[in-house]
């Protein structure tokens, strides 16, 4: 199929899809409407279980089983990347030469690194109280570590980032989520049902039953996953070279 026919096909399909989408948009309830039956019920359920951040309650309590699925996708995607980006037999590692970084950038990176890392950990820890949680905080903490690449160099980054341990950490966090779910099954009523732990005082760090535990497991999993992903991509982009003559 040449480019011209394909463009026509895309135009026809896209045009049809556009018409259908616009027709559907006109039929949707108006933007900003007052009727949100699911939202109202979720808020009530969250308050009854002493979780201040309703979104954390939806993710780690009311829809915890769904989050287990999401976590599995994340784990599988990371596993796939690790397998696809491993060093093959016809490749070798070349030590990257230290590159010049402008001193202001270097100083800025070293100052921001601890602040960003702490922010990430804070966001994970306060997931059930304020906006934030394992998913966001994990990404922030893991990307913050990589400021060291700017602030020092690649070797310093490699020293604080033994990838193998982060891979183990990823698997441990995923198992911790499942084990918490099983503990709910044995001690309480059903898999991942938030009935085992006391709900605690509203708006304190220990409130919400199993929500903080699952939140911490997700935080660790996401942080480890992002570190491993970036490490693999950095390896490929900076270090691994093909043998010449192949």
């Amino acid at each position, binding site marked *: 199929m040449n480019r011209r026919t394909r463009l026509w096909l895309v135009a026809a399909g896209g045009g049809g899809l556009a018409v259908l989408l616009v027709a559907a948009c006109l039929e949707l309830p108006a933007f900003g409407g007052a009727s949100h039956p699911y939202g109202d019920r979720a808020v009530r359920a969250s308050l009854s279980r002493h979780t201040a951040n309703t979104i954390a309650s939806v993710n780690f309590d009311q829809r915890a089983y769904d989050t287990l699925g999401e976590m599995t996708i994340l784990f599988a995607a990371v596993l796939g990347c690790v397998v*696809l980006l491993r060093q093959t037999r016809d490749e070798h590692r070349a030590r990257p030469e230290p590159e010049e970084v402008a001193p202001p950038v270097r100083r800025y990176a070293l100052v921001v690194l601890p602040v960003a890392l702490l922010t990430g950990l804070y966001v994970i820890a306060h997931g059930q109280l304020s906006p934030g949680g394992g998913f966001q905080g994990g990404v922030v903490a893991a990307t913050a570590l990589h400021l060291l690449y700017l602030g020092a160099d690649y070797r310093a980054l490699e020293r604080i980032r033994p990838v193998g341990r982060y891979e183990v950490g990823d698997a441990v966090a995923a198992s911790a989520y499942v084990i918490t779910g099983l503990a709910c099954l044995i001690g309480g009523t059903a898999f991942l049902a938030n009935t085992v732990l006391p709900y605690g005082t509203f708006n304190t760090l220990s409130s919400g039953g199993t929500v903080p535990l699952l939140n911490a497991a997700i935080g660790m999993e*996401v942080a480890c996953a992002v570190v491993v992903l970036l490490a693999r*991509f950095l390896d490929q982009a900076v270090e691994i070279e093909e043998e010449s003559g192949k």
Partner: protein
Amino acid sequence: MHVLPYLVAAWVFLAGCYGLATSRNLIHAVGCLSVCQSATYVLLLAVGYRDGGTAPVFSDLEPGSRPVVDPVVQALALTDVVVGATVTALLLALVVQISKRHRTVDPDELSELRG
């Protein structure tokens, strides 16, 4: 104003699809796919918005004192943002493998290779 957010979501989705179909570089195609993905977040959050509502976080808000926006769609979008990024990484890893095996990242040249 009543349908503008939905139309923006549709526009972003269609723009991403167009880019995906006409892309000459697989890396660019993966970028277009993440544009398509962001359309779904816009649609979800637009559905959950409520006029005069505030964020459904009660650490500094008396429950029942103000209307809040729908937390369910936010939770859906939130998990997908992070999980979507790892899936993007998986696609990019596949692109790296394709460039290793076939020495090109142009989809047209790749289909020519198949004959």
